[in-house]
């Protein structure tokens, strides 16, 4: 984790290069879709932000769709207790 603390950030109003590099490297782990070619140390801040926003929106849509699907698939909420045990055993 970076050694910079929030106290010092008031002197750097923009997203610093260090922060961008940190963000990009972490995002690369989380988002295999981002394929930033490392031309230099500088990465386009707006592109990374855009990718991040797109990704979050995509995840939100997925949660919404899955909620839809689950509500249609579940016969009754009571069955959760049975399925909960099955799910638990599957995920362990």
């Amino acid at each position, binding site marked *: 984790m970076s050694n*910079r603390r*929030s106290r010092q*950030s*008031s002197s750097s*109003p*923009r*997203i610093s290069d260090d*922060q961008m590099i*940190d*963000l990009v490297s*972490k*995002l690369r782990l*989380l988002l295999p879709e981002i394929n930033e070619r490392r031309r230099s140390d500088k990465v386009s*801040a*707006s592109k990374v*932000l*855009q990718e*991040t*926003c797109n*990704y*979050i*929106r995509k*995840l*939100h849509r*997925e*949660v*919404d769709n*899955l*909620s*839809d*699907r*689950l*509500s*249609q*698939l*579940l*016969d*009754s*909420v*009571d069955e*959760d*207790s049975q*399925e*909960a045990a*099955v*799910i*638990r055993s*599957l*995920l*362990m």
Partner: protein
Amino acid sequence: MNTYDMVKQEFIKKWITTLHMCDSSVEQPMNVTERKNAIRLSSDIAMAATRSGATIWSRALISRTGKNKATCKPVAHRILKKARNRMKKRCTTITRNGGAKMRVRKRTELLKSLVPGGELIDNKDYLIRETLDYIVYLRAQVDVMRTVAALDSVTNK
């Protein structure tokens, strides 16, 4: 078992709890829309509860869902009562972006609107940290729900 698996495990424990609580607090039988809302709501609360009160996004999400549906407010409070006020708002200074480019500023605003509580965060360092944290838990939520949906379509005839 890695950390991400532990996150998913914790999430599913919380989700089962919130599902039962939401279930017991609304009248049966629910129509499809009501059930979808209950599932979405319980899932969001569970995701935030998994993170408990340690991040802005999780507390903002609880507060937001608590406002929308009165029935699940006691659910939210019951789960978070132990994590109450563990973290004060650390983002204090308002940074004026005189030198920042318009595109970065606009997309930062967009990001703030997507991350719960993001509109409260002026400090960019903090916003990035919250975003990364939020994404991890969002993915866990999606992964678990996807697994349950797949399982459910197999077991339900």
